[in-house]
């Protein structure tokens, strides 16, 4: 397997990039433009005129115990909403008349979302005088919620880039959460808990790999069944053994945040990013490592080759099945770490169904992020932000009360809109989900 041979696989990659810039169809352009204008009008008229005149929106940017105090940002709510709304309307109007290109459109949509969310936050603060939003708390909660999602999404990327669909992220996660809590409790050592979580996740990955690669079982079916299996098994052991012996078997310590000396003193982002637990730091490292490895190393090239065109990869001497086994188990281990983040990285004890659908949201992040580590991370952050925002909003009184149940729907609706609206027809790795049979 010389370098000269593997470099030949790179060629189809180039062709794919050429296809990306297709002109946007007129119909789609008009629909997108109309949606943008509608969103802008909602910002300006709904939130702008809906907010009570003379109220300020206060965004608090510093925590109480912070090293360098950052002043609060105080904006007049109504005018801010109007301005943000008109920005979005202008973008929509341009889209209607002239049309953005595909790559520009992605930025336009991003700007629209930011404007919309800001306007919404401004409006929601005008219900009562003196309401403020703790932006730092909101963002740190976002990171807290995002970590398992990011890890789960990375697990999905690693697995699916090699051509095996991973619906079982949820199951791998819950196995990791369970093993982490159990072994950290028994051994009183958090690192053994993490190790157990990695192994449990990898074991679930191994099951997925054996049935998908060796027994050629339909991978979506398999993932769903493995989720049921993992949920049932951990739930069974929890009820039968852990619950009656909570003190010895289910009361692990939790990782404490470690402040990185200089970096944690930076205003705003310091306490946000660099005063975190080991699992969070591991996540940062993994995001970079997976991204670099996937696109800059031999491992990544082989992974992508196997996921796109296994026959070609086989022809140049790559062991397709071995690459898949390895990646699926690696993905499982990463998902196991995501599970550990839920128990010993956060609250400690394991409870039934502790992952509560986070594996599926991670899966959505994989698709929304177009099977790239960066995209998946961004998608996971977006989702976590929606989740954190709904928590914040449930504590302040907007001028027009929104039932908390609708706020709780927000992350899921955001995912549907994201998958349906922003992504459109995504292209998975070409051989994703197709078993490879040599012959």
């Amino acid at each position, binding site marked *: 397997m010389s370098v000269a041979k593997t470099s030949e696989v790179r060629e189809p990659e180039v062709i794919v990039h050429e296809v990306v810039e297709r002109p946007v169809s007129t119909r789609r352009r008009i629909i997108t433009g109309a949606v943008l204008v509608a969103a802008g009008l909602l910002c300006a008229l709904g939130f702008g005129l809906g907010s009570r005149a003379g109220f300020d929106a206060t965004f608090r940017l510093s925590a109480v115990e912070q090293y360098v105090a950052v002043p609060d940002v105080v904006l007049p709510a109504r005018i801010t909403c109007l301005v943000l709304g008109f920005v979005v309307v202008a973008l929509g109007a341009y889209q209607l008349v002239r049309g953005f290109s595909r790559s520009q459109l992605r930025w336009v949509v991003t700007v629209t979302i930011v404007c919309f969310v800001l306007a919404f936050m401004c409006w929601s603060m005008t219900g009562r005088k003196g309401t403020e939003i703790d932006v730092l708390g909101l963002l740190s909660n976002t990171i807290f919620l995002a970590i398992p999602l990011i890890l789960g999404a990375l697990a999905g990327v690693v697995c699916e880039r090699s051509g095996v*669909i991973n619906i079982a992220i949820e199951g791998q996660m819950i196995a990791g959460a369970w093993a982490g809590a159990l072994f950290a409790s028994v051994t009183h050592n958090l690192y053994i808990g993490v190790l157990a979580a990695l192994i449990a996740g990898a074991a679930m990955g191994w099951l997925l790999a054996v049935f998908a690669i060796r027994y*050629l079982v339909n991978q979506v079916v398999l993932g769903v069944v*493995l989720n049921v299996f993992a949920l049932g098994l951990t739930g069974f052991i929890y009820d039968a053994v852990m619950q009656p012996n909570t003190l010895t078997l289910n009361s692990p310590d939790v990782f404490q945040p470690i402040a990185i000396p200089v970096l944690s003193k930076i205003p705003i982002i310091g306490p946000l990013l660099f005063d975190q637990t080991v699992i969070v730091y591991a996540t940062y490292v993994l995001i970079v490592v997976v991204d670099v490895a996937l696109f800059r190393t031999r491992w990544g090239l082989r992974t992508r080759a196997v996921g796109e065109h296994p026959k070609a990869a086989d022809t140049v001497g790559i062991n397709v099945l*071995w690459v898949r*086994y390895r990646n699926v188990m690696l993905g499982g281990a990463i998902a196991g770490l995501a599970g550990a983040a839920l128990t010993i990285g956060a609250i400690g004890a394991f409870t039934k169904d502790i992952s509560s659908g986070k594996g599926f949201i991670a899966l959505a992040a994989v698709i929304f992020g177009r099977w790239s580590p960066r995209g998946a991370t961004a998608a996971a952050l977006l989702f976590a932000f929606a989740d954190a925002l709904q928590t914040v909003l449930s504590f302040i009184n907007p001028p027009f009360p929104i039932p908390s149940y609708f706020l709780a729907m927000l992350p899921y609706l955001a995912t*549907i809109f994201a*998958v349906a609206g922003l992504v459109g027809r995504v292209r998975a790795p070409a051989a994703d989900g197709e078993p490879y049979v040599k012959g």
Partner: protein
Amino acid sequence: MSSTAEAPGPEPGEKKTPRTQWRPLGGSTIVVTVLAFVAAMIVGGVLIAFADQDTRTASSYFFAYPWDTFTAAGRAIGNAYLALFEGAIFNPNTAASGTLSGYLGPISETLTSATPLILGGLSVGLAFRAGLFNIGGQGQIILGAVFAGFVGFHWHLPLGIHVVAAVLAGIIGGALWGGLAGLLKARTGAHEVITTIMLNYVAFYLLEFLLSVRGFQAPPYGQAISNNIDPSARLPHLFGSSMRVNASLFIALAAAVFFWWLLTRSTLGFKLRAVGANQFAARTAGISVERGYVVVMLIAGALSGLAGVAQILGTNPAITGDIDAGIGFDAITVALLGRANAGGTVLAGLLFGALRAGGVQMQSSTGTPVDLVEVVQALIVLFIAAPALVRAMFRFRGTGDAAGAGQLAKGWNG
């Protein structure tokens, strides 16, 4: 690791057998199904022994008296599975009372649990046949139950008309929720696995919201429970009110017949199967794949909606937050075990219904957590999915049809 990776799948020649039937799990015979069930129960037995306090106590001195461990484990497994049988099929203790419900009570429970599973299984199976994965059973069941339940307690119609109206409302509710996922797929290409899962959560919170609204929530507004369904909207019990089995069983059987007719006798079913077999060929043949997605999800949603109807008009007196009772996800395993055809789904629904009914009895009388049933169900499907594994475990050689693994491999790209 490397050696297992290299292990051959089916022989290349077997790939060429025509795929006349949809086989998500590979063609396998009844023997494999039975062996898969046995293997799953064996693994379940190991788990029961592991969970049993006496067995664990005995195993602490295993090397001194190994027999103690085995007798304790055997007793635990025997008791648990006996309770499972008593809860699902026949219980000599209650039968001793001599009443009809004493004899038929367990069977009634099995049929009651099986009904929504059959309907949900048909829903998932129908989507499978058109190449879609309907993981949104939960949401569709919730919407079906909400619509049917609302008509059931809010409208006050004459006897007879009321129940029909409520059933229809349930069908509409489920179809809306399923059709939404189909529409999203057809219009925007959003993958149905993602949208249906997300719609499950949306439906769940929608239900939680409704259960906090006056007019839906039952007075005195303390608990998250809806008003009781009017008696005129309830599906009648089959053997008197002492047993829960009700007319929703006939709805499930009728739905199974409809499923069979739709897929094997109707033009629409032919189109849907064509879309499922090869969407590109179907499109070339002039079939609208997009319309197929919407239609199949509408019907699949309607079938799940009927499962919600069975729950709310048949079994439960009012809507609660857990009205779907995990049926949406169990339905997937039912459809898989039933090979996505009508007869198979009915049988699979009955089997899993029996496991559910028995599992409740097992938990109450032996303390074995009911989650065991989930594990056993997953294992059955896993083992059936890999007939080669089951055959290797029991050293049994399959013949002909069972030998291949001509499963339908489908990725994200359709």
